[in-house]
């Protein structure tokens, strides 16, 4: 049954949780405790922190989020191709390359329009 293949995934998740928990708990146990007001201050590149940590970001970032989302969807559709790659052969490879190629055209357009340039 194929679901038993998820055993290794579960082991991986459990190990990573245990590893993170062990690192936190161990460092909490062995650390020397000498708290101070300056020590508990937020670290900000050696400067005194000012203002609020949650500020309004520039709308320019949104384009990157949208472009990321497009290539994210591309990854979803290339995933089944990658899984059954051995059974599909050359035709599917050409199809996938056309699929990627059309999307790369969009990236080239973004490049040409200076959309990726930081202004």
């Amino acid at each position, binding site marked *: 049954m194929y679901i038993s293949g998820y055993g290794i995934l579960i082991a991986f998740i459990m190990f990573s949780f245990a590893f993170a928990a062990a690192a936190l708990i161990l460092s909490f146990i062995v650390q020397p405790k000498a708290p101070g007001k300056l020590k508990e201050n937020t670290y900000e590149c050696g400067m005194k922190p000012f203002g609020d940590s*949650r500020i*309004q970001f520039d709308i320019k970032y949104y384009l990157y989020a949208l*472009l990321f989302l497009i290539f994210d969807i591309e990854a979803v559709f290339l995933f089944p191709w*990658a*899984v*059954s790659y051995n059974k*599909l052969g050359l035709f599917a490879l050409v199809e996938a390359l056309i*699929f990627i190629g*059309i999307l790369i055209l969009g990236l080239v*357009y973004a490049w040409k329009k200076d959309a990726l340039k930081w202004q």
Partner: protein
Amino acid sequence: MEVIYNLFFYLISFVLIISALGVVFMPRIVYSAVSLILAFISVAGIFVMLNADFLAITQIIVYAVGITIILIFAIMLTGKISEKKLWIAFAPRTLFAFAISGAFFVTILFAITDGFKLVARESNIFSATLPSLETIETLQTEGTTGIIGKALFTKYVLPFEVLSLLLIAAMLGAIVMTKKSGDNLINHTTKTIEED
């Protein structure tokens, strides 16, 4: 095997419900978004338990990553919203929300108490579209991703390629709408004027 299956199901459901409650009750909207990621991943776990592995990976790639990124960007880009608490205000719209979620709850209750099966049996809607036992068996042994991949690159090649056109249209739309129109043009003309 059955016991382990049930154990995992209840564990994932527990995490899902707790994180979904976290989305509603967390004090900051950013914490709610992080809690939402956990909820999406738990739903992916439930998809895995239902032998729907392609849906599970799609759930992670699209929802837990893509949608959440857009959500967090929306929070970051709107200035003062991130500090606001999500209070449940008692306005007329609250009644609407209660009515809609109540109707949804009744629908789910109807579904899990086999109400739909009775309706389907009486009206014979689903009898022709139910998959055969062989199909179900191959799905359980191979998983759905390979089968979907095979179908996508043999029978449904054309929709697959048209999809890339849809994606490129979305991409061009995003570029055109976020870039100010004529931005590039003005730069070019000023450049040529400077060169002259």
